[in-house]
């Protein structure tokens, strides 16, 4: 426990300078864009004097370092500025959209894990046989199709040709759910609305599957190679000599050791998967962080881009910390160090 707490504390300490650096880089990069946030926040028929006044009000007439200091002070107090397009607090917009994306990414990760672990075990099972090449070909095909293409294929197949699953938004039009946590699946259950829960789950299926399937082949391959490595270890041979069945050797002895690199990879993958929600959310009209970011970029909404970008960074760092802690829990050798 102490080791885990120590690790978390260390990771938190290193996360702070990372966050600071990312925020500076983003701030400078966005300010270098040929965009005038003051002009863009005014109506088309505003005069040049109106815009100059707005520029002063937004602090854009001050040096870049002062501007950053103002932003940082605000951010530390929870004020990330106002969205130019929506004229609302950027922090509130992000907080409202974040649960939907987390929910989508988690469901996608579950699908990626099930497919990845199941596929990895299957590939391992097929090793040395005639079907091994077929398995390899399958993972190569899965690897070469990006998530947005899966998203389009699923819409076409399960949404239009065989209209069995919804692909628009996150809830059927006949339902309204009181938001408590922001996580629709949880909120529908809290409200005791079984049908709404089923509807939310159905709406989540295709986007989560599109994301999950795209990230599953890497997990399959790492798990298979992990198992292949472990099977060369002495303790596996000794287990066989002791007469332990192959199934038990695989599940009880080999898998817990082979899964550690897979778990680390899944952590890294989850970061990518979170970023991958961007296009999938747009295609499925899913009201999450990705959709918000695409809109912000399209409208050159600098405060919102900065806030969403920083949120992505925080989420990826948190995922990294969680995975490290999990690996530490599962691997006693690391704890001993």
């Amino acid at each position, binding site marked *: 426990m102490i080791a885990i707490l120590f690790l978390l504390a260390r990771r938190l300490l290193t996360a702070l300078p990372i966050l600071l650096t990312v925020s500076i880089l983003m701030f400078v990069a966005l300010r270098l864009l040929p965009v005038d946030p003051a002009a863009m926040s005014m109506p088309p028929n*505003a005069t040049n004097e109106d815009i100059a006044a707005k520029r002063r009000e937004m602090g854009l007439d001050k040096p870049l370092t002062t501007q950053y200091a103002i932003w940082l002070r605000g951010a530390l107090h929870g004020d990330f500025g106002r969205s130019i397009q929506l004229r609302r607090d950027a922090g509130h917009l992000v907080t409202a959209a974040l649960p939907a994306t987390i929910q989508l990414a988690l469901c996608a990760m579950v699908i990626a894990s099930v497919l990845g672990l199941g596929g990895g075990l299957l590939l391992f099972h097929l090793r040395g046989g005639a079907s091994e090449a077929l398995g390899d070909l399958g993972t190569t095909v899965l690897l070469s199709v990006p998530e947005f293409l899966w998203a389009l294929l699923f819409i076409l197949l399960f949404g239009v040709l065989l209209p069995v699953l919804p692909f628009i938004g996150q809830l*059927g039009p006949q339902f309204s759910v009181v938001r408590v946590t922001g996580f629709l699946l949880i909120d529908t259950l809290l409200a*005791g609305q079984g049908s709404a829960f089923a509807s939310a*789950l159905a709406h989540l299926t295709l986007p989560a599957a599109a994301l999950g399937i795209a990230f599953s082949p890497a997990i399959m391959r790492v798990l298979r190679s992990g198992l292949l490595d472990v099977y060369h270890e002495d303790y596996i041979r000794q287990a066989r000599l002791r007469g332990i069945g192959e199934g038990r050797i695989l599940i009880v002895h080999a898998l817990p050791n082979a899964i550690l690199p897979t778990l680390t990879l899944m952590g890294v993958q989850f970061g990518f998967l979170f970023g991958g929600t961007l296009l999938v959310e747009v295609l499925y009209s899913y009201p999450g962080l990705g959709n918000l970011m695409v809109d912000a970029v399209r409208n050159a909404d600098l405060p919102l881009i900065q806030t969403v970008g920083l949120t992505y960074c925080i989420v990826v760092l948190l995922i990294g910390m969680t995975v490290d802690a999990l690996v530490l829990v599962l691997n006693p050798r690391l704890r001993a160090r």
Partner: protein
Amino acid sequence: MTPAASRRGFLAMTAATLAAPSLVRAADDAVTIAWPSDVPGWDPNQRFTPDAQSLFKAVFDQPLDQAPDLKLVPHLVTRWELSADGLSMPIDLRDDVVFHNGERMTADDFRFTFFERIKSTPGLDIANSWRKVQDIEVLSPTKAVMRFSSPAPTAPVWLAFLGSYLVPKGYVEQVGAQAFAQKPIGTGPYRLVEWEVNGRIVLERNDKYWGPRPAIRRVTVQIIKDPSARVAAVQSGQVDIAINLPVREAVRLQGEPKLAAELDPITRIILLQVRNDLGFEDANVRLAAHHAIDKAALSRAFYNNAAVPLSQLATPGTPGYMDDFSVRFDPELAKQLLAKSGFGPDKPVKIGFATTNGQFPSDYDLARAIAQMWKRVGIEADIQVIEYPKYFELNRGHKLPEATLYSFDNATGDPEIFVGYMLNPKLPFSPWQDMTIGQKVIDLFNVADTAKRYAGWQAIDREAMEIGAKIPLLQSVLTLARQKNLAVTKYANGWVLPQTMRWT
């Protein structure tokens, strides 16, 4: 545990919903609409966004309304009369209108919306359209007089235009502008019951509405930004009506047995904004650029012939439209004009040409086709893609190139808002800064007599075309696909109003 939450019931419903959720239609008095963009917020006075007007009109009322043919009709205001000098306008308000919270709408709310709020709340777009309001004198709960600092001939038109929605003084003052933009209260035919940014908007019928009772009880507006996803949604039956579809897809959907798809010309003009300097300083070059464009071919190629070719800054059927005026497609004339200025296919004049990509249907393709047509006569255009929000910023800094592909929306059809706004050098819409026409435009903004100003705008429009101050291309089209048994009233300005929908 409720029956709905019991395990067996829950599993049965899960299976049913997972198996065929798209087959579950809410009810016969419900409609799901696929809309291309979200509202910027629910304060209807705050931002001018043409695409959001149909949604605002469901929740809020305007003092005046427009009939499907764009004629101004009474709404909250039952009588209005602009004085001969255009400096004042007495109005009568209905006495049977209540806001969604039950409060009665009175002339105090009218004064608050169009005067007090504009002066006290910074950043409202509506303030720019009602700058001339000097005061609004409240005579009784149903009578008021608008007073203007200079003639305001289009004041009645603006009472039915962008941002002019009546908001409740008491409620806004009580909760503040921020809270109002989240939980708005209007007098419109629907109440807002749910708004998920970038997700969906749910409206429920206002059963105490003073006007005709909408046939649809519950309206779900699903924000679907991707045009292909809107097509798929209406085709699969997940939504009942979808707007702004790619033209080719709309044409294809016309063959679907359960759907009705339409391409309707609206009061939106696709044009080339031009500068009066740089490579376009010479009128011969500008006129050659106009004569070289085969607008009928553009309509045929990109809009299935539904977009009407235009030679003026007005759409057919609006007061400024001139039946007897056109600029013909004549590439030979274009070559002659260019030759007069020393240019030709072998020695082309070089210009910059800005366009958006995806702001309106086929915009980028349109720009490429125009550049090809120009190349044949001796104009070499360097196409630059710009984001629409940057247009005004670039124009303010005089950084737009010689020509820019642009789409101008005018739901009112009034010629001042077409010709005047697009040619007024003091307004931010046009890169044309020459004061020869500019001064005439500015002067005409102060003429109150309707017949005189209509004639004046037509004369200016004609003059602008003769010197190549603008290059109108096409009348834009609204593409829409709906379930065949869903009827919706067609408006010449492209409004798609939930309150006019009904199942047949």
